């Protein structure tokens, strides 16, 4: 008997700022490995997690590895459902222009370049969480 192939909804839920702790970096490492598994993957950034996507990160002064460019590579791994909580942005005075411009090539639309990030209300993020099979919390 052969196993049916399981396709589950995986949500990576990121709530921590980058660099202060390793959660942002090691979350990204799971996402990259996970991309090979052909699951239905979404990323959500809420609370301080939204700071992970801030553009212009420059870590020379703190002597740590700048891993922010890795977010830009996510599109190439077919990770293109990236949801950001609007309330978290608002209370931090951030708008979409403050974030990195993450895109992917839509193979169903002649490889047109499309934005990966959607800013959603908390209500929509809640609905997204509720429909997941697996939530990996960072």
């Amino acid at each position, binding site marked *: 008997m052969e196993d049916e192939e399981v396709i589950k909804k995986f949500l990576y839920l990121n709530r921590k700022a980058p660099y202060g702790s390793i959660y942002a970096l090691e979350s990204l490492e799971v996402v990259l490995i996970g991309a090979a598994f052909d699951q239905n993957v979404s990323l959500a950034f809420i609370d301080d997690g939204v700071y992970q996507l801030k553009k212009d990160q420059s870590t020379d002064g703190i002597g740590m590895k700048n891993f922010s460019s890795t977010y830009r590579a996510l599109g190439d791994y077919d990770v293109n459902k990236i949801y950001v909580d609007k309330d978290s942005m608002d209370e931090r005075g951030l708008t979409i222009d403050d974030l990195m411009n993450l895109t992917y090539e839509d193979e169903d639309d002649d490889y047109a370049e499309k934005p990966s990030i959607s800013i959603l209300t908390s209500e929509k993020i809640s609905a997204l969480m509720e429909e*997941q099979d697996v939530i990996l919390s960072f």
Partner: protein
Amino acid sequence: MLHTINKSPFQTNALESCLRFARSGHSVLLFEDGIYAALKNTRFESLVKSSLTDVKIYVLVADLEARGMRTDNIIDGIKTAEYGDFVDLVANNKSVQAWL
């Protein structure tokens, strides 16, 4: 859906963030330092009480007692849970979000 909170509401934003995203019918388990949110007469009592109309809240008794609290210190409407009940909560909900 089950939400777990293991941080004191006085120390981190885990409780407030959880209650912002938890939907009607969801369950919330308070354990480790999260149990302080279950207690009467704290600054968070009214927030927690008002959320009880939407979500079911459980508190892990072992963590409550470790911290010198008793079940009669908890807000009316919050249910007590043993580790076995924690397991049942996980089994009876489709997914678990840990508000770390």
